[in-house]
């Protein structure tokens, strides 16, 4: 029974990650930037970048990303 529950959890995680990565791959860059901008302040920077797959525009880019690009 425990084994089956673990299997279901693994499968659910695989499906969820696939959906997120697919959406990231198929979403145009301009929409990603707007979405990252919209989520700015609503969730942490790390989650925002992980979810959207982009660090956002000049206004909402985290300082760490900005420093890296310089």
């Amino acid at each position: 029974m425990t084994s089956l529950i673990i299997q279901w959890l693994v499968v659910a995680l695989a499906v969820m990650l696939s959906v997120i990565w697919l959406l990231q791959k198929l979403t145009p860059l301009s929409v990603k930037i707007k979405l990252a901008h919209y989520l700015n302040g609503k969730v942490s920077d790390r989650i925002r970048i992980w979810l959207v797959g982009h660090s956002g525009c000049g206004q909402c880019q985290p300082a760490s990303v900005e420093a890296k690009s310089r």
Partner: protein
Amino acid sequence: MSVPHPVLRVALLGSPNSGKSALFNQLTGATQKIANYAGVTVERKSGWLKGSQGTIELIDLPGLYSLEQPRTPDEAITAQFLIGQIGNESPPDRVVVVLDVTHIKRQLKLLAYVQQVHPSVLVALNMMDRTQPYSERIDGPVLARITGCEVVETIAIQPGGAVALGERLLTDAASHRTRVRAAAQTAQSNQDPSLGLGAHAEDAKRVYERWIAALNLDQNVPMTRSERVDAWVLHPILGPIILAAVLFFTFQAVFSWAQPFMHLISAAMAWLGDALTAVLPTGPIQSLLVNGILAGAGTVLLFLPQILILFAFIIILEDSGYLPRAAFLLDRLMSGVGLSGRAFIPLLSSFACAIPGILATRTIPDARDRQITILIAPLMTCSARLPVYALLIGAFIPNTQLTSWGINLQGLVLFLLYTAGIAGAFAVAWLLSRFRRASATQALQMELPSYHWPLWRHLVLGLWQRTQIFVNRVGGTILLLMVVVWFLSSFPSPPPDATRPAIEYSLAGRLGEAVLPIFKPVGFGWQIVVALIPGLAAREVVVGVLGTVYALSGSATEITSSLAPMIAQSWSVPTALALLAWYVYAPQCLSTLAVVRRETASWRMTAFLAGYQFVLAYAAAWATFNLASQWWIAR
């Protein structure tokens, strides 16, 4: 990535096919970046040549035939760049004019012109390894004496063939920096922008005529080997026959030669499926790996050998110098349907993928010509369609020899499908050109390179790149889609009293049933409809989805290697033919539509492309299904 501060900026300039980019790659290695000039759709490449004497920024400019009357945006930009008339950008400190020694008579015209507008010109006399009609008369020292330019002999395609040029440039960087830069700036300040480049035309012409006379290039020379071959290959009647035979042989080989390799991949997939089934306990993970990923992405991977054989032929034809001849042969046909001669290269690129083809339309100067080429480029059969064609042909077309000398029916059908795509594109181009204003015809101007044996290095590298692209697609978007499709095809579970296969109660099954009425008139079942939807992200996904859908419909042991026989049992022949006809014209690629939107900056144009392709695909599938059904009943 940190960008080094260059000591000198050197532009590489030359006619297309003169070996400019090969020299650029030899001198800079793989460290190159792409930069767009604002507002224009022209690309140039920059790279760095580093030595103990300093660093040189090398700029590879688009190839051009003349500076006198730039006809396309890329030619105009190159001309303006040379004299520093682009924004605040300074002109290059030196210009390396790459001359193909086998076509030196024509290319000296460009050198004469560049010499008028830039004070620091170095000539790279390229392709010195080739037999050429003027070999007894022209070499580096002779050309240097006549033209007054520094000349370095190069062989761009040989490793080490550009060493002398690199050393010369680096020596300049160390010793002539101040002089060269000052001369270039003086020249820039002396240019009167209002006069344009045309002001130098007369001087350049006089200089060119003097050089031609001094080098005795105005005399007739005996025909070269390439010219003798061209007498047959470019013959008005024999030429098109040879071209058709070459293409026909290519498609025959795609089917005949790939079989052993496909059997190997298929056996490996079947072994992996059996191993996973044996090792993993029955449950969702086993189902996801075996029925979802292996049956889906694995089935797509099966078609890698056919794609590689097709690209091997394209690379060989390109490397040998035959493809420009094909462009020349098709030019008359293309102008007959209202297409610009310059549309050939974008359309040819579209056989790999429509996206680079659409980007390549940037070289077409007339806006309406460019629009028409963009609108028909997705009708060229891209490599993503090949797995779908191969699956359906393998399942429904008998593998019979039509003649004793090796014409195979499957290869013939593949050839006809490619031909149908080209014929459809030309018909649409002809129709669209009826509705446009009259404009000056842009003639095709193209340097025909000498024939030579393809290089193994290029072939292996090209095939390796195609393998990487294909495997990345299978391991990326396609794999992710397969996981999602597996989920949609597995849930919700069927009710306890279910009488039909479980997949018909799933989300995918219900979605397929909901959309089915639209596609029923063309003979598609719900499984095909389910496959068409994720196929919008990548065309070859259709094969993977069918693999997953049929794997979930049957037992886990009969997957991956048996999709073709499975669909052969489930579908009628008219349905399979209708799906083939649909795929020749279908607007099934969101990435292509996104690129069309970006390149045309018009949603209307994008919607028109998707709309007309849908109507064309639907009409072709409907007609094929009904005609084939009638024929099948009457038989």
